């Protein structure tokens, strides 16, 4: 009887795909916190409380050594690419210079756009769309080959989840394919282990040009919790050119989807923005 049963259930449940991006984006979990904002001007003089608590060494205060001599402390710089969103810095900051924005949007085109702290650079400088030529080519049909190069299976899982009925990634013409020969680009997770380096290089070479590369997660952007280990390469950009960086540990599926659609120029800023 499962045929009748399934059909009945299916009808009862209706469409379960998120309304986004036509409708509002679903809210992030309240304890997620979203992207960080750094107002370095608020830093207390001589304070570097956030620097040692960061597990991935994402925060630096370059001239702190001088500050301890009585000179003015330099601006802190937070690299959201390295960030694993543990919020330890937010909790420890006495002046609320580092705050959570609750914003799911974090994808950028240039690595430097993830460095927060400088005046005008308090928040991430979100990615724009691809140039017109690439956009015409990939905007309505993008085939990606996923390469896990030391990923812990969390980024992979939250990429996979975009393919479920809840997100239905293929409605945007984005699909994951089995062969790099069939792909328009790579989506890379993991810090790129030494043992996967060659496989990644070969997979990249097998994708026909023009091609794009997307680095998903703190590991693929900068090595994540493994930064500095000799067994890995501190991120995909050290091996192949990267066109889109999506931070997180792992990034929420909404953050990944936002990044993909942003790059393809498929987002109406009006509906994507949540205030």
């Amino acid at each position, binding site marked *: 009887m499962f045929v009748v049963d399934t059909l009945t259930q299916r009808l009862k449940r209706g469409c379960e795909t998120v309304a986004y991006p036509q409708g509002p984006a679903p809210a992030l979990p309240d304890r997620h916190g979203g992207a960080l904002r750094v107002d370095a001007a608020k830093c207390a003089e001589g304070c570097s409380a956030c620097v040692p608590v960061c597990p991935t060494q994402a925060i630096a205060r370059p001239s702190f050594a001088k500050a301890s001599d009585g000179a003015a402390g330099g601006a802190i710089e937070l690299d959201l690419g390295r960030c694993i969103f543990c919020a330890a810095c937010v909790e420890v900051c006495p002046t609320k210079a580092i705050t959570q924005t609750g914003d799911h949007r974090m994808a950028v085109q240039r690595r430097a756009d993830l460095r927060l702290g400088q005046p005008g650079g308090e928040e991430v400088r979100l990615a724009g769309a691809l140039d017109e030529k690439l956009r015409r080519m990939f905007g309505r049909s993008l085939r990606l080959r996923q390469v896990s190069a030391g*990923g812990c299976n*969390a980024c992979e899982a939250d990429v996979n989840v975009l393919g479920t009925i809840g997100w239905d990634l293929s409605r945007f013409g984005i699909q994951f394919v089995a062969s790099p020969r069939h792909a328009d680009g790579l989506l890379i997770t993991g810090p790129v282990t030494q043992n996967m380096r060659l496989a990644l290089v070969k997979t990249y070479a097998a994708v026909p040009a023009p091609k794009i590369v997307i680095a998903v997660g703190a590991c693929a952007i900068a090595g994540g919790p493994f930064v500095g280990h000799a067994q890995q390469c501190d991120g995909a950009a050290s091996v192949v050119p990267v066109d889109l960086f999506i931070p997180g540990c792992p990034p929420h599926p909404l953050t990944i989807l936002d990044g993909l659609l942003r790059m393809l120029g498929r987002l109406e800023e009006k509906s994507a923005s949540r205030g």
Partner: protein
Amino acid sequence: MSAPREFAPLGNATSLPWTEVPEWPVAKLVDATAAQLAGGGRLCAWLGVPEGGVTRLVAVVAFDADNTLAVARSTAVEPPTGVPFAVSHRYPALTPRCAQAHLFEREVWEQHGLVPDGHPWLKPVRRSAGHAPAVGEFFRVEGREVHEVAVGPVHAGVIEPGHFRFQCAGEEVLHLEIALGYQHRGIEDALAGGPHRATLSQMETIAGDSTIAHATAHALVCEALAGAEAPLRAQWLRAVALELERLANHTGDLGALANDVAFLPTAAACGKTRGDFLNLTALVCGNRFGRGLVRPGGCAHDLEPERAAQLLDRLRTALAEVETAVAWLWDASSVRARFEGTGVLTDEQAADLGLVGPAARASGLVRDVRYDHPAGWHRFAQMPVAVWPGGDVFARARVRSLEVQRSGQFLVGQLAAAPDGPVCDVAGPLAVDSLAVALVEGWRGETCHVALTDAGGRFRRYKIVDPSFHNWTGLALALRGQAISDFPLCNKSFNLSYCGFDL
């Protein structure tokens, strides 16, 4: 049966001074371990401890029926005397007598250079230095009709990398050899001298889908070494998070198994419900995989009554959805025809290999850390062990479906009975020169962490045994005699971790 005199007994999540670990010449340690494994013991860990230029071996054995663990060590394995040139340090291998030691001895050889004399298949486990993992000799079947199929490291799906080498006669797989190591990130190396500030994040990403299991095992080890337990409420919250992790992954696996036999209603429904379970973990701590929740000393977030009520409400909905979707699966004769008799692993094979988790329980083995070696909250709240005979894909799916039900019932009960109190305590300094062992039943099975501290209370050696380390060989054996086209289905029925193995 009580722990033999060659071993020092200890409970799960406890520690003892290194000097109290009995020390034997290496041949005697191998004999004693073999005797215990033959008498019903199970090898949880077999590791080398470097000491100057030499290495000691440490054996951790579980006596499931007695609810105890036991540990012993060897004296330093010395090179043969009277040899004028440098030679490898050797010892008589355990593997010829106990198959479950085979990967452990290969690992010790790769990590410390100790040669197990008589090991039948000595080759690297991860190729952590030098060539890529698949470079080297593979077991080959010769014959005119025999051909070889090489798959990976990059696979067709969104999945981690590994290399599979099949020896086939036509469609039939005669032998499968699995070469891993592509995901090696140097986690154990980095732990020396720790804990460091990145340690907890690394524990949470050993295997990203088992964040709670590994973080809890690490926290238990640290707490045992610090001589302090986490507050009861934290233990309760960890138990809740562990079952949420199990629910998400088992549900995802049942959907993926349905997908692999082209039964799409269950695949679609479970794919979505899995996300709902992940979102419940995110409700507790903000992260869908439970990162930032468990830490030595307790938990970083509390589950306040209102939040618990919301969790329970959403949990009931998700459980009902899984129940319905999985009922379709069991109802469909086409699914049963594909699941039954596929990828059979006999009880004897599973026992010999020392399999753990749902894969072991699907071969009729009653082993579950939550029941056999309860630590933390599982001392106060139990759930029945889900066992199914047969050892085929059907049994492995069935065990998961039973565990979904039991985890669900456990959570519904526990969420209504939370202990009061704080969720976090200050984690004290670690005891010096001590050894601690913690086992946690993650959704894949026994997650084992062994820590040994130095004279300064820092980690001198830290060994992580992901359940996948025990189970990958089970997959290889289950493939024998199968059609190669059934590999994806068999692989999914085990769903083992690549990064958890590679570390």
